[in-house]
C-alpha cells in the first residue's frame, strides 16, 4: 500500500521552494547566512539576514538521490569518503553546482556555526568559509553532562553578545531586542505546535510514520522564527488531529509501534520504512525530529537562547540521552526501537551500543542497530538490512513470551 500522503505536504513543497528561491532571487539586498541546524537562528532573523541551511539542502540532495555523485566529486578533490556525507555532498555541490539540485546553494555572505550538534560542523563550515572567503562565526557550546552549569551559560551568553556586536560591525544591520522577542515568540510557537503534532502520535493508530516526521520537520529547522512556519504547523496540526479523530493511521495496520533513533536514511526514506509496514509496524516517534523541541525563555532572550541551545539532544551526556529515549518509549507505548548507526554522524552513533543496552535494560523493549548512512547510498546494503529487520520483527512477534533480557548485537 502506498504511503498515505498528507494534504499539507503540497503546501510544504511550495514553502520550501519559496525558501530556496528567496535566498537566490527575492531579496538581493539581504545578506545570506549559512547556518548550522542547531544554531540560534533567531538572532540572524532579528537582524534581517537570510538564513540558508546546508544540512537541510544536503538532506534534500539525498532524498533526490543526487548526493552520491556530489560526494564523489568531493572525494575526487581529496576529501575522504569517511567524512560526513552532508559535508561531502555540500562540498561537491560547491565544486560542481551544475550537477547539484537547484544549481547548488547561493553564495553566502557569512556563516554561523554552532558546535552543539557536532565538531564536524566546525570543520565543514571552516572549509566552506575558506572556499568562499567569507567570515565564519562560531558559537562554542560546551558538552553538558548532568546539570547545565552557570559558567557554561555565561560562556555561551557572552559569545552571543559578541556575535551580535560582530554582526553589527561587519554588516549594515541593527539588532533590536524587541524584535528578537517577537522572533523568539514565533520560534516558540512553531516549536510548541511541532511538539503537539509529534505527541498526537501517542494515539493508536499513530497518525504519522517516521517519513512523515522527517519530511515535515523541514520548516522547524529552516523557517524557525518565522510566521510562515507557525502557519504551516497550524495547518498540519489540524490535519493530523483530524486523522486521530477519525482513527486513520499512517500505516494500513498498526500492530507494532517503533521508535527511530538518528538522522533519516534520506535516499531510501520511503522504501526503507515501507519494509517495516509489511510487518504492520509504524515508527510512531523518533529522537531526531524532536531535537528541535526546546522553548526559549523570553525574559532575557539572549540568555534564554544560551540555555535552550546548549543542552540539545546531541550535546548532552549519554545517560540523559537514554533517559529521553526511555521517556519517549513510555509516552508513545513503543514495542521496539531501531537505531540507525549512521557512519556520517559520530556524536549520534558512537554511543548507540551503550544507549541500547541501557534503554533495553530499563524498559525491557528490544532494540535493533542497523548500519547505514544518511546521504551516502554506498553504505546501504539492502539485503543485509532486510535480513536483520526480519529477524528483529520476528523477535517482536514473539514478545508475548516473557522477555529474557537485552539483545547485545
Amino acid at each position, binding site marked *: 500500500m502506498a504511503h498515505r500522503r498528507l494534504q499539507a505536504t503540497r503546501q510544504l513543497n511550495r514553502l520550501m521552494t519559496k525558501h530556496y528561491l528567496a535566498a537566490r532571487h527575492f531579496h538581493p539586498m539581504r545578506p545570506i547566512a549559512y547556518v548550522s541546524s542547531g544554531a540560534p537562528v533567531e538572532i540572524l532573523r532579528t537582524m534581517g539576514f537570510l538564513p540558508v541551511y546546508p544540512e537541510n539542502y544536503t538532506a534534500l540532495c539525498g532524498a533526490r538521490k543526487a548526493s552520491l555523485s556530489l560526494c564523489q566529486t568531493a572525494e575526487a578533490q581529496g576529501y575522504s569518503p569517511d567524512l560526513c556525507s552532508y559535508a561531502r555532498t555540500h562540498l561537491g555541490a560547491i565544486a560542481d553546482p551544475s550537477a547539484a539540485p537547484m544549481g547548488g546553494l547561493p553564495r553566502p555572505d557569512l556563516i554561523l556555526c554552532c558546535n552543539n550538534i557536532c565538531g*564536524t560542523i566546525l*570543520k565543514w563550515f*571552516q572549509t566552506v568559509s575558506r572556499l568562499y572567503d567569507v567570515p565564519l562565526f562560531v558559537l562554542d557550546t560546551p558538552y553538558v553532562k548532568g546539570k547545565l552549569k552557570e559558567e557554561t551559560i555565561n560562556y555561551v551568553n557572552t*559569545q552571543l553578545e*559578541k556575535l551580535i556586536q560582530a554582526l553589527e560591525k561587519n554588516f549594515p544591520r541593527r539588532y533590536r531586542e524587541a524584535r528578537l522577542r517577537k522572533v523568539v515568540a514565533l520560534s516558540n510557537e512553531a516549536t510548541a505546535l511541532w511538539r503537539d503534532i509529534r505527541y498526537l502520535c501517542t494515539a493508536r493508530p499513530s497518525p504519522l510514520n517516521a517519513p512523515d516526521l522527517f519530511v515535515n520537520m523541514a520548516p522547524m529547522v529552516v523557517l524557525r522564527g518565522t510566521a510562515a512556519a507557525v502557519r504551516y504547523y497550524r495547518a498540519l496540526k489540524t490535519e493530523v488531529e483530524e486523522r486521530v479523530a477519525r482513527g486513520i493511521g499512517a500505516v494500513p495496520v498498526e500492530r507494532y509501534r517503533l521508535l527511530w533513533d538518528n538522522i533519516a536514511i534520506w535516499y531510501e526514506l520511503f522504501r526503507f520504512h515501507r519494509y517495516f509496514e509489511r510487518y504492520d509496524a509504524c515508527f510512531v516517534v523518533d529522537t531526531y525530529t524532536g531535537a528541535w523541541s526546546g522553548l526559549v525563555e523570553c525574559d532575557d532572550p539572549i540568555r534564554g537562547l544560551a540555555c535552550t541551545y546548549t543542552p540539545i539532544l546531541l550535546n548532552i551526556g549519554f545517560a540523559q540521552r537514554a533517559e529521553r529515549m526511555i521517556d519517549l518509549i513510555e509516552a508513545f507505548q513503543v514495542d521496539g526501537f531501531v537505531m540507525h548507526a549512521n557512519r556520517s554522524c559520530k556524536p549520534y552513533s558512537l554511543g548507540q551500543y551503550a544507549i541500547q543496552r541501557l534503554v533495553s535494560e530499563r524498559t525491557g523493549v528490544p532494540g535493533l542497530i542497523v548500519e547505514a548512512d544518511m546521504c551516502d547510498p554506498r553504505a546501504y546494503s539492502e539485503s543485509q538490512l532486510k535480513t536483520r529487520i526480519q529477524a528483529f520483527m520476528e523477535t517482536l512477534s514473539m514478545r508475548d513470551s516473557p522477555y529474557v533480557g537485552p539483545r547485545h548485537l
Partner: protein
Amino acid sequence: MATSTAYPVGFQCAGAIVEQLRSSLGAPCQKQRTSPPSLGYMCTYVPEEIIHAAGFAALRILPGTAPAFIADAWLPGFCCAVARGCLARSLSGELDQLSGLVFASTCDTMQCLGDIWGMARPQDQIVDIDTPTHLDSHHVMSYLTGELSRFAHEVAAISGRAISFQTLWQSIRLYNRKRQLLRQLEDSREHLNSTDYLVVINAGFVLPVEAYVALLEQLTIQLSEESHSEVATGIPLMISGALLEDTTVHELLDELGGRVVGDDLCNGSRYYDTLVAESGDPFEALAVRYLHRAPCPCKHAPAHSRLERLRGMVRCTEASGIIFALHKFCEPHAFDYPYLAHTLEEEGIPSLLLEVESTSSRGQLRTRLQAFLEILSL
C-alpha cells in the same frame, strides 16, 4: 623540583637510554610499579600539571596491543583506531591499576568515548574537562581558567590531596622542563634515527614525569657529547597527523632511506612547542598555554594558521616533502588535508597521504613510502 629516587638512573650511553625508554613502552600500564597512583588521559588538552599536583602520575593511554575487537561490543566499525585501541586496553584489564580517567571534549569521538567508557567500565572514576573550541578573546580565557580550577578541585577530591599554588607551580616547572628537554632533543634530532626519536617521545607519555625528565637530561647530554654518534642520513621529511604512536611508518622510513626531520603530531611538536609562563596565576598561565599552543584541528583557528605552521616547519627543516599520516575516521584532520596538501603542492612541497589503522599492512605502507621516496630523489 625533586627527581624521584624510586627510578635511579645510572650513567648510560644514548643507545642504552633509548632502549630503556623503549622497554617502558612495552610494559602494560606500569603494572609492576605500585606508586605513585596514576590518572589516565588520552587527549593532550588534558592538563597533566594539575593531575601531577594532586599527587598522581599522569599517564597518557596509547592504543596498545590489546586486540581491538574487544571494543566492538561498545563501538561501531566507523570509529577511529585510537578510541577503539584505548577502550580495548581497558576492557582487557590492562588499565585496572588506574585511579581514574580524564576526558577532554576535544573531538566528537573523544567526547563520546568518555560517556561510553563510563558505561562500559562503571568501576572507573571519570573526570571531564571542557576545553573551549575558541582560542581567542578575553572571555574564553576566563572560562578556561575557571574550568581548570574546577578540574583541580575534582582531581584533588579523588586523591584526597589539596592542590596548593606551590605544588601546582612545582608541577608546572617540572612539565616545562620536560617540554624544554624535548625541544632540545628536537634540535639534536639528527643524532637519533626516526624510530628512536618517536620511541623517546612516546615513552614520555607513559613514564612518571620525574623518571622521564631524568632520562631525558642524560640523553640530551649524551647525544651532544657522543660526537661519534652517526648523523642520520636520508631524504628529509616532515610528518603530520593526530596521534601516531605506532612506529611502523618511522621504521620503514629508517629502512628505506627517509628521515623525519620535523613533525606536526599530537605526540610530537604540538605537545612540546609551548611552555607555561612561570608567573602570575597558575591556572591562568596554564590556560594561556592551551590557547597559544599549536592547535589541534578540532579547535577554531584561522584557516591559514596550520598551513603557515607546516610551511614554516618545512622551510626551517629543509624537508623535501610531507607525509600526512592520518587515522581512518579522524574527521578533523581529514577535513584539513585537501587544502593543506594542495596548497603545499602548489608551492612545490610534495606530500603523501597515508591512512594509518591498527590493521594497516606493512607491505602496503612500504610500497607507498618507497614510491614517494623515489619520486623525491628524482
